[in-house]
């Protein structure tokens, strides 16, 4: 079993899928000669040629729109949009088209495409630092994946490329250098499966993407004080598998939900609603949300860190639900 960065895990999945299936091709800004803004596709232009690793104009609408067309016409496009902030311009193609091709055609056509994009921040200010997984996770017909570990990124991206439905795959820029174990032999992970990443009896922490790591760090530190947190990762946001969360909650009676979303109408609200629906009788404390405050993300580092949640916020929330 090899240690591998999240970036290399995504790259390995792309290369393997392109070698396996010649219908798979990549397009997006900078993906070709330059190898991608986050260096994910580095070297792939030389491996597969410009027809299958296609640099495009700065045209988010046509990157997603042409991917929808190519997918309907039998290819398996993997379109890359640098960040979700720019993918807002692709949402018409994803929501009004990709998500509805199968339905509005009564099942005759399908749209097996993947839109890869990123969430993330780091002194890039308000319009480079937003995360909108809840916008797309709301839409029937789409699947939304936000992996937190290299192994999950690898196994889920491969599954996404082979999936017959459109998938929005959101990587996190802070995670590209994170290392983790990824088995050498090829594997796929099922889309729509949540996992317990750390077992504990006192509080259930639900998180995904970067906040999964903050949750694990918080759990490590709290363990030194004798508080055992169970950390549940939800790498697929749609279809959402909350069975492990509900099961865990029925054991701990308390939950903290940690996301980078703004407070209000976020993924956390859906999780909380489902816990109330499925485990109301087990509730020992109000469910606590750890989120970003509702403010555009500022540029200055001190301001930015004040507006982004981390492990300290999670620890405080855990102590509050235990009080």
């Amino acid at each position, binding site marked *: 079993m090899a240690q591998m960065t999240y970036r290399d895990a995504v790259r390995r999945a792309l290369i393997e899928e392109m070698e396996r299936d010649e219908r798979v*091709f990549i397009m997006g800004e900078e993906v070709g000669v330059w190898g991608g803004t986050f260096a994910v596709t580095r070297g792939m232009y030389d491996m597969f040629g410009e*027809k*299958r690793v*296609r640099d*495009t*104009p700065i*045209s988010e*609408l*046509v990157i*997603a*729109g*042409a*991917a*929808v*067309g*190519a*997918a*309907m*016409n*039998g*290819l398996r*496009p993997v379109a890359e949009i640098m960040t979700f902030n720019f993918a807002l311009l692709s949402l*018409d*193609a994803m929501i*009004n*088209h990709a998500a*509805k*091709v*199968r*339905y*509005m*055609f*009564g*099942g*005759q*056509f*399908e749209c097996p495409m993947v839109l890869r994009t990123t969430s993330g921040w780091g002194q890039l200010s308000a319009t480079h630092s937003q995360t909108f997984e809840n916008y797309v996770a709301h839409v*029937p*017909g789409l*699947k939304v994946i936000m992996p937190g570990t290299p192994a999950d990124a690898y196994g889920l991206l491969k599954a996404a490329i082979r*999936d*017959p*439905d459109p998938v929005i795959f959101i990587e996190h820029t802070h995670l590209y250098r994170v290392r983790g174990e990824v088995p050498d032999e090829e594997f796929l992970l099922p889309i729509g499966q949540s996992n317990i990443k750390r077992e504990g009896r006192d509080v259930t922490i639900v998180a995904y993407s970067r906040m999964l790591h903050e949750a694990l760090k918080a759990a490590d530190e709290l363990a030194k004080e004798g508080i055992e947190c169970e950390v549940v990762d939800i790498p697929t946001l749609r279809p959402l598998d909350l069975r492990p969360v509900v099961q865990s909650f029925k054991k701990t009676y308390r939950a903290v939900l940690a996301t980078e979303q703004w407070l209000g109408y976020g993924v956390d609200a859906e999780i909380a609603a489902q816990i109330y629906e499925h485990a109301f009788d087990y509730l020992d404390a109000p469910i606590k949300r750890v989120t970003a405050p509702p403010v555009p993300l500022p540029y200055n580092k001190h301001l930015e860190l004040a507006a982004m949640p981390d492990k300290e916020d999670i620890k405080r929330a855990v102590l509050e639900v235990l009080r």
Partner: protein
Amino acid sequence: MTEYVALDAQTKSLAFDHRELGLSDDDVRRMYELMLLGRRFDERCEILQRQGKAHFHISGQGQEAAQIGAALAFIPGKDWFHPYYRDLALLLAIGVPPRELMLGWFARANDPASGGRQMPAHWGYRPLNVVTASSPVSTQIPQAAGIAYAHKLRGEDAVTYVSFGEGGASKGDFHEGLNFAAIHKVPVIFVCMNNGYAISVSANKQMAIENVADRAAGYGMPGVVVDGQDMLAVYKVMKEAVDRARRGEGPTLVECKTVRLKAHSSDDDDRLYRSREEIQRLRAEKDPLVRARAYLLEQGLADDAWFEEIEKKIMEIVNDATDWAEAQPLPRPEDAMKHVYWDR
């Protein structure tokens, strides 16, 4: 450089001789028949909407020559079509059976487009590679570029038809789609059906230039402006464009100058923004059926008896499609949840 075709023709019939375009007498008679079928079918759908039997209608009346001229330049079954909502006559011309098209208006369970899930006039027909549209206009343009990209990637010589109004040409989708297609020289024909109105907004309020196709030069592809009321002129320029695309020489932007004889849709009242005199003038001077009829008579290809016979035949087809489709079963409510995702 833009090419301008048949725009200053003084004739009340058509600008070209069909024999010079490689069309037989039968071909021309067939084109007239298809135009008439488009018109009568469209009128029937309008009536169905007024009767409350269909919820929505959007008309292509006035645009039949452009649609038929375009349709006949393609190879149905091989080529792909990403039509817009006024392209009824084109769908009939490429061979979508009238009965099946009518199912869409009645939103019946066996509607081949979507089983009653999609709006009328948002065509979809898998056997002939007709891709369903969504309601935001001109979003089909980037998709058509992608469909054609897939053909090119696989080394196939199929060509993609995509149409939109001049209103849709104001959107960013138009720019991004045409630029992408030109860069990659993909086999797609962009067909702008310029009927002078984006719902209520006249073309001179939508753009500061006379012709949408003049923009083609800015993308590095040929642009052609053609009299969209002349089925033979449209066929001629479409054939040339399709042949170029099939030879691997990339896309063309064709603008058909046409007219919209009806309101935008059944939800619109065009008396609020255009005079009845204007409509009367368009009917007198621009109706493509009148022009085609004059040509057939002038060329001695048909007489009054033939026109009567064709009228009767077309009405039989429209009546049959209506009666048959209306009698088909409605979708089951529980099927509303089907086809959201792939279901093994």
